[in-house]
């Protein structure tokens, strides 16, 4: 472990030369405000976000940059250690390739860039000390739709200047070359199974139609973003006939407005399912056929467009076991070094 270095006290500036596709400041997210319409936001793949910080020797929830599909170019004012996890986007320093999932150093005046995302959807860039933006409602995460948190409440633009903070962990910044073991990296496949629990409105769907929904392969649409993941290619749902209840619209997929859980799978007009994610709206009038279990939400954050997805029904007990397994994975990350 590197000793505390007095020249490494944060305050390094990071100039955004190119912003990438959508690069945002994210952390663990803000809990407890969804009932007021403010979603958690935060890193879509919480495991890779936390892994980046722990690998680098930051506090586990120091703010990082989440880089979707195409990475930014960032110029550093002082020597800074960095770790990139999540999607396979080869980091480069002044154009020279470096290893992902490894602590690397960017020198004063050097530019950190990224190769194409050859697998996965979001790279997490931890910088020593974290990204220093103000906390809003307990989080530095960007909620773009609400213009809240992060850097000025929005994705980064060319010319923005960020500052590193002082969120270094108790053991200090890690040595250059430290690697994230393969077993602790998020798997990045082109086909994924998502576990879900049916409800609360699955009774609206004809049983054979619901069965078919669970056997078909769906494709991630190009619209998929931090708000929701739209899926295509399956058969439209067939609804049970009814008289619309008071307050619900005429479309058979309409319900009297209800809360939308993060992970809930709504199916507007029965056609293209949308899995709500961390920037979701908190309620509305579409029926939800089920909810993806919390342990599989990180996986969704790493699905680029065109990925094949299937749903598997699980019981609440199986979902809780998966949640415990995820917690154990996090604990292995915390104790890896």
């Amino acid at each position, binding site marked *: 472990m590197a000793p505390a270095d007095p020249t490494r006290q944060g305050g390094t500036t990071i100039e955004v030369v190119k912003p990438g*596709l959508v690069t945002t400041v994210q952390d663990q997210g803000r809990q407890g405000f969804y009932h007021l319409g403010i979603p958690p936001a935060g890193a879509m793949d919480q495991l890779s976000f936390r892994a980046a910080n722990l690998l680098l020797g930051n506090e586990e929830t120091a703010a990082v940059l989440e880089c979707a599909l195409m990475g930014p170019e960032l110029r550093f004012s002082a020597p800074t250690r960095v770790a990139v996890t999540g999607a396979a986007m080869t980091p480069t320093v002044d154009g020279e390739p470096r290893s992902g999932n490894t602590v690397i150093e960017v020198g004063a005046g050097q530019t950190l860039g990224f190769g194409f*995302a050859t697998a996965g959807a979001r790279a997490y860039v931890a910088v020593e000390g974290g990204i220093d933006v103000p906390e809003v409602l307990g989080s530095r995460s960007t909620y773009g739709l609400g213009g809240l948190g992060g850097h000025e409440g929005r994705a980064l633009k060319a010319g923005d200047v960020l500052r590193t903070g002082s969120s270094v962990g108790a053991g200090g910044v890690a040595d250059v070359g430290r690697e994230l073991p393969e077993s602790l990296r998020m798997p990045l496949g082109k086909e994924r199974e998502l576990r879900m629990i049916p409800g609360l409105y699955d009774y609206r769907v004809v049983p054979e139609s619901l069965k078919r929904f669970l056997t078909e392969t769906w494709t991630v649409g*190009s619209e998929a973003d931090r708000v929701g993941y739209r899926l295509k290619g399956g058969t439209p749902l067939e609804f049970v006939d009814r008289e619309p209840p008071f307050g619900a619209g005429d479309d058979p997929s309409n319900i009297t407005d209800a809360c939308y859980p993060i992970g809930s799978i709504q199916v507007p007009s029965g056609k293209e399912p949308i899995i709500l994610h961390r920037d979701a709206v908190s309620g509305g009038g579409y029926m939800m056929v089920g909810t993806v279990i919390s342990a599989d939400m990180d996986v969704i954050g790493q699905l680029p*467009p*065109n990925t094949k997805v299937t749903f598997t029904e699980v019981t609440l007990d199986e979902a809780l076991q998966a949640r415990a397994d995820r917690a154990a994975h996090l604990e292995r990350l915390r104790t890896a070094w």
Partner: protein
Amino acid sequence: MSEIHEVTAPIPGTFYTRESPASDPYVSVGDTIAAGDTVGLIEVMKMFNPVTTEVGGTVVEVVVEAEDAVDVGDVLVRIEAG
């Protein structure tokens, strides 16, 4: 012999050959284009992102149909450099 340059998709998404249904395609076979010219758009995350060529020359093939799904690295257009 002249060199064939392949313009590949830098991001996944839906490929568009023209800015709007009423406009002309960005490039057609036989067109002469310059480095930096836009060859199409890739729509992803509700944003339209221009794809540009790093090499100028003559377009010899437009590989992808309009509104096809593309993955990172898919060849979009072939250009005879010159």
